């Protein structure tokens, strides 16, 4: 399998120029949003870590009326983990919490090679660029880090 299928233009572009890699909230007190669109009680923040490789991201989202209004991240990791996070942020902005959860589920199935129906995968938009990670099991954890983190933070919100 050509590795360039994974390190393709879409992934490389999101890795080198991530639109959503910034702070959504003040680092000292993340309840106080610096983004004027964020109201105090609607900012969620969660850290995701891959302990075996040390990749870590801090994911922040702003939910208003059950819609993800904004998403941002910080952290460090390989190109696969960073690009995957940026692509995910782009995808879920404007989606409802339920839609975002369905998308994370679909993405995780795709990179595990469990879902290959191209019609269904179209919903993932640019995230389809990470499909071939399924052929590189050692890197699956890099691709799914952000998606797992988002899924967990949304489920925690639902359970509150």
């Amino acid at each position, binding site marked *: 399998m050509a*590795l360039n299928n*994974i*390190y393709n233009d879409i992934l*490389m572009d999101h890795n080198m120029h991530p639109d959503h890699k910034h702070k959504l909230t003040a680092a000292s007190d993340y309840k106080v949003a610096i983004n004027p669109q964020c109201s105090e009680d609607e900012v969620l923040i969660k850290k995701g870590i891959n302990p075996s490789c*040390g990749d870590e991201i801090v994911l922040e989202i702003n939910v208003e009326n059950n819609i993800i209004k904004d998403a941002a991240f910080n952290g460090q*990791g*390989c*190109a696969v983990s960073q690009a995957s996070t940026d692509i995910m942020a782009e995808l879920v902005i404007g989606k409802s919490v339920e839609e975002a959860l369905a998308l994370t589920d679909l993405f995780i199935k795709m990179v595990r090679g469990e879902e290959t129906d191209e019609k269904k995968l179209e919903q993932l938009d640019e995230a389809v660029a990470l499909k071939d990670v399924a052929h590189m099991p050692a890197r699956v954890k*890099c691709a799914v880090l952000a998606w797992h983190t988002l899924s967990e933070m949304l489920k925690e919100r639902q359970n509150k």
Partner: protein
Amino acid sequence: MNQYKNYFPIMRHNKNLAYLDNAATTQKPDMVIDAIADYYKQKNANPLRGLYELSQKATDAYENARKKIAAFINAPKEQEIIYTRNASESLNIIAYCLSDLLLKPDDEILISIMEHHSNMIPWQQAAKRHNAKLIYLYPDKNGCITTDELKSKLSAKTKILSLTHVSNVLGTMQNIKELIAIAHSNNTVVSVDGAQAIPHAKIDVDKLDCDFYSFSGHKMYAPMGIGILYGKQTYLEKMPPFLTGGEMIDYVDEQTATFAELPYKFEAGTQNVGGAVGLAAAIDFMQSISYDTIIKRETALSESAGNQLSRLPYVTIYGDKDYTKHHGVIAFNIEGVHPHDVASLMDAGDVAIRGGHHCAQPLMRYLKCNFCCRASMAFYNDEEDINKLVERVKYIRSYFHGAQ
């Protein structure tokens, strides 16, 4: 293919592969694989227990291997050679049993920031159990612990010094003999982690005068699952056993037991005789190649890799600038490319290296890099492998950041 690669079936089956992850594990030559197969075909039985000829053959194979290992590292007595699963287990035994023997609250244990997690976490745990302090030594810019650094940290409370002989990231060898002498003059017991030293340098534990020396078979052409703990008899006899159960006992009644003599006190349960036989064969193999050849080839390869990579302005190499002192290990980063991406893209070009924290996270933070790539050479590697590595580094950098 060079004559040395030809000894290794994996190399014969993967002619295009530049295997540069020898610090993680070395490949196994025919001589070792055949010795293990012959043992299981001709001698396998439970050693030490069976009252029949085949068991005696297994026992002889096990004990003859011990003799060979003792001679290989010049251990004064065979009973001072304990079989373990790997260097990590050896280090755990020392940290657990020696700390039980020596430590009181407020005592101090000295280790270095360069330690592999295997020589760090067991001491963190030991310090916690005994309310002792874990104190770190820091290297100079070349990756060496100076005698001044050691002297400044030693005190009347320092009971144990546990130090790597060769760093698994920086490749630098500590002046361990001198450091041991200083520690001994302070009545400090010294344990040496030799996992990365023994594949690259002749070890003489008697001359070093270390109290303990640990290593793994699989990093020196032997199979995985066999390791060695050398310890001075005086300490091993006083230390409590680590694992208890079968074959490590002398006499057992309902409430108490007495323990077997050395080395069996530390060898509970049925042992890895095939592994011991494989380790003995690996010693024969290394001696047939000779340390002179091994050292000469690995030094030349480290120097070539270090010199070529250091010419690339976007590459940072960690450790001594004299690459002949790297013992086959070149740790580096390509500016702007994460080591995991480097390792994956190296793989696409048939080059196997490791990227990550190398089980040395505190050292990574000390070096301010968090992660790095590590190319590690063995004597069977050659200039062609190094050239492939260097070409791949150039390609990966240009793939991420355009041609330089």
